[in-house]
């Protein structure tokens, strides 16, 4: 495959536990320049945790993380902003890096929210705020983008456009993307590597390989409409409430 110089972040058997309970463990994956790696899995399977391990937000981890870039753009799944701060979209755009006006305007135009530039962040709708979050992450032209359900709350047409934008950014900036998404259509058509999580890595590989996987077929076939929430794959193991994995 590609040489080591292209690796942006690499997880080696990484895991994280909170209050003696494993949120996720034994995850090995790597994100390379120009590639999109997608994490899929049911709720509570450790997707966001894995992203936070990769970002270095969680420090007391099992295994190891090798991070080769500091130019990172992050769209978190949940973000709570304290409204004691008077913060406009424009102020939010330059939060972690100073950018000139053209760069800010370009990013906001790409995600379709340039008209909100001088609005107070607290006055935005969920979908609008999500577009601002994405604009902020791409505006600094990062080498590594970590997008945790970046289009949640965005309207249907906007969702498709934003996914196309993400793909385009990956090509143009040649940045690596770690994507968490529930939209299997996007996952299968636009990404280079899929990792299926359920507290640990259930299966992983190219979309074609994963699509051939029996566990994945069970999910993609008759249950396609309810995509991941009812994801029941053929396990050779069970998960206990403590996050232990027992072989059958």
């Amino acid at each position, binding site marked *: 495959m590609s040489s080591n110089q292209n690796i942006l972040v690499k997880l080696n058997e990484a895991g994280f536990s909170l209050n003696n309970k494993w949120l996720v463990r034994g995850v090995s994956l790597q994100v390379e320049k120009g590639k999109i790696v997608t994490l899929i899995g049911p709720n509570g399977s450790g997707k966001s945790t894995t992203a936070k391990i990769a970002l270095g937000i969680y420090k007391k981890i099992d295994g190891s993380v090798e991070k080769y870039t500091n130019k990172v753009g992050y769209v978190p799944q949940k973000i709570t*902003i*304290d409204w004691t701060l*008077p913060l406009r979209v424009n102020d939010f755009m330059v939060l972690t890096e*100073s950018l000139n006006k053209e760069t800010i305007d370009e990013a906001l135009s790409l995600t379709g929210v340039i008209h909100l530039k001088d609005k107070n962040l607290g006055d935005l709708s969920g979908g609008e705020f999500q577009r601002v979050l994405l604009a902020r992450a791409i505006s600094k032209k990062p080498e590594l983008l970590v997008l945790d359900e970046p289009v949640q709350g965005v309207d249907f047409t906007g969702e498709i456009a934003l996914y196309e934008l993400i793909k385009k950014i990956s090509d143009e900036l040649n940045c690596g993307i770690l994507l968490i998404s529930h939209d299997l259509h996007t996952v299968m058509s636009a990404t280079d590597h899929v990792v299926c999580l359920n507290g640990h890595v259930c299966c992983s590989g190219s979309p074609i390989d994963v699509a051939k996987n029996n566990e994945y077929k069970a999910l993609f076939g008759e249950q396609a409409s309810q995509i991941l929430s009812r994801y029941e794959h053929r396990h050779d193991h069970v998960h206990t409430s403590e996050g232990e994995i027992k072989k059958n």
Partner: protein
Amino acid sequence: MLDDFFIRALVAGIGVAIVTGPLGCFVIWRRLSYFGDTLSHSALLGVTLAYSMEFNIAFSVFIISSLIALTLIQLQKRTNLPGDALLGLLAHSSLAVGLVVIGFLSFIRFDIMGLLFGDILAVTVDDLLIIWIGGVLILLVLKLIWKPLFASTVNYELAEAEGLNPDRAKAIFTILMAAIIAISIKMVGLLLITGMLIIPAAMARNISSSPQKMVMYSIIGGLLSVILGLFSSLEFNTASGPSIIAASLFLFILSLLNIKQSIKLKN
């Protein structure tokens, strides 16, 4: 010119207000007002130690307040007590120890009221140097850590993920808080320093639409409070600290009127 005690007090007060403006904004944004109280209560201990060892008050207060802040961080890591309980524990125990130490220092004449509420007569040329040099240093350091501190105030995980090292910024900010208390204690008095930090900033929040504006208005509000407060202190022979804080309260109330007007305009 600096021979006149009132000019000295004015120059000192202006120096203090320029620094408390931006720091006060962070105190409000990061919800640190009770933390400020704890540090300033512990300052009494610093003052008494300074008197008993004939050491400079500002340095002594800075060291004691920094130690209290570090103790707090350690206690937060090692105990399961909630933050406000730990703050209360440190605030009142250091205040109590400070008062007990005063009791032992009966041979020194203490102006306890001046200590608690500020005394413009007590501002010396040395104090001016400490306020202005210390103030410039505080502002320089704040400028250096502004980006990570502000980003982590908005969202810790974004700042951490994008490589800004928010923990270091937070630790440095804690030291700056101890420093501002040390340099403003003579002007405002240790019971009212937190008021000087938060009231002008709270006033600024009411009338500003961006963080930069809030910092600017907070500085202006602080300056006006100092000037108004000191003149009325001179006029009515009241303690300088309460006069300054009362003036800032007056400005805060004015800013509330402003909000009502702007709501009317919107409608």
